[in-house]
C-alpha cells in the first residue's frame, strides 16, 4: 500500500459539537421570556412551530412560525449562547401572522416560539432540533 500516515485525513473538525453550553445561556433565555410575557401563563395552543427533527446543517436551520391573530411572535434557541433569535411583529393589516427564517443552532436543543395573541394572552410551541455528526445510513 502506497499510502502513508501523512496522507491520512482528519475527520472534519467542524463536526465537533459544543456538547455543554454555559448555564448563563439558559438564564438569558428565561430573562427574555420574562421580558416578553411579563410572567404571564403560556397556553399550548394557538401557535405552530415547524422545524426539522434533525438539522441537515446546524448553521442554517429553516423554521416557520404561525399564530393566527397574533401581534408578535418571539423565537428563541434555548441552547445558543444568545438565545433570542427574532421577534416578528404583525400590524393590524397583516394578511397572515406567520413567518419563516433560518437560524443557527450551536448544538442539539429546543427551539421555542411564543406568540402574543389578539386577546393579549400568550401561547408557546417548542421543538427539539437535533444537530448530529451524521454518517452510517441504512
Amino acid at each position: 500500500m502506497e499510502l502513508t500516515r501523512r496522507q491520512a485525513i482528519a475527520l472534519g473538525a467542524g463536526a465537533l459539537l459544543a456538547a455543554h453550553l454555559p448555564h448563563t445561556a439558559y438564564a438569558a433565555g428565561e430573562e427574555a421570556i420574562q421580558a416578553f410575557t411579563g410572567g404571564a401563563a403560556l397556553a399550548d395552543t394557538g401557535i405552530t412551530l415547524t422545524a426539522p427533527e434533525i438539522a441537515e446543517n446546524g448553521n442554517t436551520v429553516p423554521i416557520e412560525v404561525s399564530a393566527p391573530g397574533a401581534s408578535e411572535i418571539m423565537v428563541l434557541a434555548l441552547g445558543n449562547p444568545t438565545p433570542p433569535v427574532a421577534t416578528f411583529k404583525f400590524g393590524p393589516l397583516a394578511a397572515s401572522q406567520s413567518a419563516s427564517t433560518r437560524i443557527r443552532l450551536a448544538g442539539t436543543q429546543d427551539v421555542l416560539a411564543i406568540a402574543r395573541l389578539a386577546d393579549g394572552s400568550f401561547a408557546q410551541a417548542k421543538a427539539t432540533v437535533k444537530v448530529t455528526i451524521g454518517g452510517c445510513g441504512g
Partner: protein
Amino acid sequence: MISRRDFLQTGMAASAILGTSGFGNWGRLAAQQALTQDQLLQFDTFGNVSLIHVTDIHAQLKPIYFREPSVNIGVGPNKGKVPHVTGADFRRLYGIEDGSPSHYALSSGDFAALAQGYGRVGGLDRVSTVINQIRSERPDALLLDGGDTWHGSYTCYHTQGQDMVNVMNALKPDAMTFHWEFTLGSDRVNEIVENLPFAALGQNIFDAEWDEPAELFPPYRFFERGGVRIAVIGQAFPYMPIANPGWMFPEYAFGIRDEHMQEMVDEVRAQGAELVVCLSHNGFDVDKKMAGIVGGIDVILSGHTHDALPEPVLVGETIIVASGSNGKFVSRVDLDVRDGRMMGFRHKLIPIFSDVIAPDPAVTAVIDEQRAPFTEHLSEVIGQSDALLYRRGNFNGTWDDLICDALLTQREAEIALSPGVRWGPSILPGQDITREDIWNVTSMTYPEAYRTEMTGEFLHVVLEDVADNLFNPDPYYQQGGDMVRTGGLGYRIDITQPQGSRITELTLLKTGERIDPARSYQVAGWASVNEGTEGPPIWDVVEDHIRAQGTVSVTPNTSVDVVGA
C-alpha cells in the same frame, strides 16, 4: 362494515406449505420437492386493486444469500414490537415452524445449514416472474419501488446506476422513491430521473435554497386502476444529507415533513383519490409514528430498515407493509376499494427462492447484458471463508468484523470504524469470496478508507452520536442504520440512557486498557460523509486483506456489552 382483520390472509406464502420438512431435514432435494413455484405464488385474487412492492434491492441483480438479523432492538414505544423481534421469538410470534422455508427466509438461526438446503434467494429475473404472474391475474396491478435500487454492486458503481435502471425498466414500475440513489451525485440523479419512464416521487424532496418542493420530484401521481382513483405519494429517506454525504447533492433538502404529507393527503383526497398509498423510505418505526400523526393514508409501503414482515402492521386505519431487502421478497397487496374507501385487504410476502421460482428469460438476458463487460472482474476468486459472513445486527456482523480486521492490518491502525449500513449479502462457510462479493458489501461513491487520529473523547462523542440515531426513543430522531462497527475497541452500551450517557467502559482491546479521553488514537475507517476524505477505496483494502489471508476466519465478537435491551 367488514373488519379489515377478517381479510388478513396470514400471508406468508411459504408458511402454509411445509409441515413435513422437520428441523434438521435440510437436504436440497427435500427442500425443493416440498416447495413449488405455484405454492409460493398461490393467491386468491381479492378486491379490485393490486399493489406490488419491492424495495431496498441495493443493485442485487443475481440470487444471493441473505441472513436476517438476530439482534434488532426496539426502544420506547417499539420495544418488543415487530420488526424488533428476531430468531425463535419471531417464529413463535408468526407460527413459523423451525427448519421451514419461512424460518430460512424470515429469521436468523441455523442460517448456514438451512441455506445449504434452500439455496439462494432473490434475482431480479425471478422477481420478474412473480410480477408477471401477478399481472396475469391482475393486469393493471401497480408496481412500486421503494428505492435504494441504484446502489450496492460492482456493476452499479461502474455504470453509475445504469445497470439497475435498465433492468428495472424491463420490470416496468409505475413509481419509485429514493435514498442511496442520491449518492450518485445530483447531476447523475437528475440525468436519470429526467428520462425515467415512470414517476419519481418524493413529497419531502425540497429545493435546499428556497425550501420549497423540488420540481423534478413531484409529491404524488394519480393512477386509475380497477375503476379506482389511486394517489401514490412518495416519501424519500428523510435524513439523506445527514446519513450520507450532503455535499454530493447540495441542491436538495429532505426531512420527514409530516405536515406537508398531511397537506398532500388532503390535496389528493380533495381531487377525488379513493385510495391513498404512501411509497415510503422512512424506515419502519418512523412510518408507524407518521401513520399515527398523518390521517387519510390507507397503505404505507415501507422501506429503508430492511424488515421483512409476513403480515402488515395496522396503525389506526393505515396498514404498513414491509418487504425486506436485496431482492429477497416481493409483497403483493390486494385491496377492496369501494365508495371511496378501503374496505379490506389481502397480503402476501413472497420470498424469492431462486431455485424454486423460474427466471424470466427476457430479464435474465437484460441482466446478463449489463454484467457482460465486467464478467472477468466480477468472478475473480480472492479467497475463501471458513465462517458465515453476514452484516445485519445492531452492533456487529461477521462481514464487518472482517472489514474492521482489514482496516486494522492494512492501514496499521489501533481502532477501526465501519459504518452500520444494513445492505450486503451473506457468504456461507466454505464459499469462495469473489471480487463481486466484496463489492456487494462495500460498493459506494465515498469509499475512501481514511486513517486519522482521534482523541478518546472524540471517539466517545462519535459513538454516542451514532447510538442516539439508533436508540433515541422517538423514532423521528432515528436514522434507520445500525451502530457503527468497531474493531480494536470494546464498549458497554446502556440503550435506555440519554445521549451522552449510553456508552461507557471504552476499552482498547489490544492492551485491555480503558480509552484515555485525552490521548490520541490511530483510527482507520471508511464511508466518511465529509468532503475531501482521502485513502484507498475500502474494496481494495478488503481484497488485499483477504488475499493475504487466503482463507478468512472470524472469531466470535464479544467486544460490545449491551444492557437495557
